[in-house]
């Protein structure tokens, strides 16, 4: 498995206006060479390898003209900075094709390996409450984020589960049970980047057919994508409610929400 964020900038300067150009980009997974961590930079002129710990980067530049040997290429740099893989491919192709209008025939091979699948929640807005002798409910919202950068498009689903809310304070308070926190509504997923959401065909990231509405003492699937879809980054807003038992002591209540993402819808 390989991380999704990397950048490789290739600068090739000076060339020949009458040269033939070509760019070849290829991808393969780390399983091809899964134990090889060393950087690899292969070139006819034995350019030095640059340090890329944890990834294998191979770039081959060859000339297609006998009268313009490869050492006409003067500069080649590789720097790491965060961009998404798709953007990287585009940037690389653009750089090579755009910045080297005069270079001789260039074959560039870039190995890109799989990124990770990640899901999390954020932007919780839940109001504080005033002491009451009656049970009360505070409402708010939660934003779920899901990102599939594996490139495998096997589908995925994200679940949420809450723990009980443990009391801390100067009074003898008791915890709220995990079932106090509930999902009361869900909005359609929104595309941040990547593969489009196709709600009509129910093939992209979607609110699962089995409603996620309910208490979070048990895990609930809140967003999922079927195989072949969901390669991208998405958000989904949830309406949540926290029921506070009557007579809950004044103080702080802390719970933990566990977000799990796994392959397969």
């Amino acid at each position, binding site marked *: 498995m390989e991380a999704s964020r990397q950048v490789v900038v290739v600068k090739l300067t000076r060339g020949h206006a009458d040269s033939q150009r070509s760019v070849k980009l290829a991808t393969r997974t780390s399983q091809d060479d899964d134990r090889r961590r060393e950087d690899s930079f292969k070139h006819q002129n034995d350019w030095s390898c640059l340090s890329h710990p944890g990834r294998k980067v191979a770039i081959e530049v060859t000339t297609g003209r006998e009268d313009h040997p490869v050492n006409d290429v003067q500069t080649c740099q590789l720097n790491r900075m965060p961009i998404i893989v798709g953007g990287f491919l585009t940037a690389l192709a653009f750089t090579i094709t755009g910045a080297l209008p005069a270079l001789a025939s260039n074959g560039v091979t870039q190995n890109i390996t799989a990124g990770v699948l990640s899901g999390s929640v*954020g932007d919780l807005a839940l109001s504080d409450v005033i002491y009451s002798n009656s049970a009360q409910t505070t409402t708010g919202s939660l934003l779920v984020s899901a990102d599939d950068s594996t490139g495998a498009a096997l589908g995925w689903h994200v679940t949420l589960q809450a723990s009980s809310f443990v009391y801390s304070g100067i009074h003898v308070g008791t915890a709220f049970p995990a079932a106090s926190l509930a999902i009361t509504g869900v909005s359609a997923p929104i595309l941040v980047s990547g593969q489009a959401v196709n709600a009509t065909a129910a093939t992209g990231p979607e609110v699962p*057919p089995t409603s996620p509405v309910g208490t979070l003492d048990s895990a609930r699937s809140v967003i999922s994508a079927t195989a072949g879809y969901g390669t991208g980054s998405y958000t989904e807003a949830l309406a949540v409610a926290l029921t506070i038992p009557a007579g809950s002591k004044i103080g702080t209540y802390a719970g933990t929400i566990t977000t799990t993402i796994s392959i*397969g819808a």
Partner: protein
Amino acid sequence: MPAALAAPDPTRLGISAIGQASPTFDLSMAPGESRVLGVDLVNAGPENVPALTYAGDVYTLVNGGMGVALRGGVATGTTAWLDYATEVIELKPLMPVRRDFTVSVPPGAPAGDYITSLVVENQVPLQGSGRLVLNQVVRHALAVMISVPGTRFPALHASSASHSVVGGRSVISIAVENPGNSNLKPVADARVFDGARRQVSHSTVTMGSFYALTSTQLELHLENLLKPGRYTAVIILDDTATGLSVISSPLPFVVTGAPPAPALVMGPIAAGTFGDGFSYWVLGLAMAVAILAGGIAVLVIQRLWRRRPRWRRAAR
């Protein structure tokens, strides 16, 4: 102060199978067979993360799907077939760490579909803030599916029903069980009848994976709130892949009178108490009002005294 979660996109930890056709493990193993496998653990975030990795039991989520036991759970069933070590690893950005483990199918394991999982998550929960604090654990679970060859006996059973209210609507929960030895994906056709045997609800629920030898809840979310009374639910469970079709017996449940709805509140939390249920700021406000009222009363009396009739002054 309102509750707040840690910044979004906090951790990006991943776990993937090594040497498999897909990023998960989908194995066919005979009883008594052992196999050494490996996973890569990776941190795709920008900073080092202490990551907890462990093997977790898999169960069936409400309405189906893969649920994974939380950290600290005791490994049971298929999870006990793995010798995957629970440990905390400092994962550096973009530096995968490999962990090998062995899957050993017990010699007497009956034929069937089995599943367990491997998990990687942030060891230290991301800290929220406010009076209602919500910390966060972000994890990635990897399924380890093991098929032990042999005859499959698909089966489903619905045993009981109950009623609850979520978001002002009725939710009917039906306890269902997969006592067979194969994973299923049933579709439930559910009907609810009132005490006069009139149908009050009809819905279809397409369940996610319902794992062999597990039980879960089938939840029916009604459009409205049922009136108090006695009801029955009847469900038909169909699994296309196996051809299994099961109809439940009438499952009775009672809708009790709705308790008073909790008040919806928004506002600052009290800073302290004066006995149970009495806040300092309430006491302070009362005192301020009393002092103000007293001052106004003094002013009014003074004015009245000055404006008293002349004949009263003369009488003095």
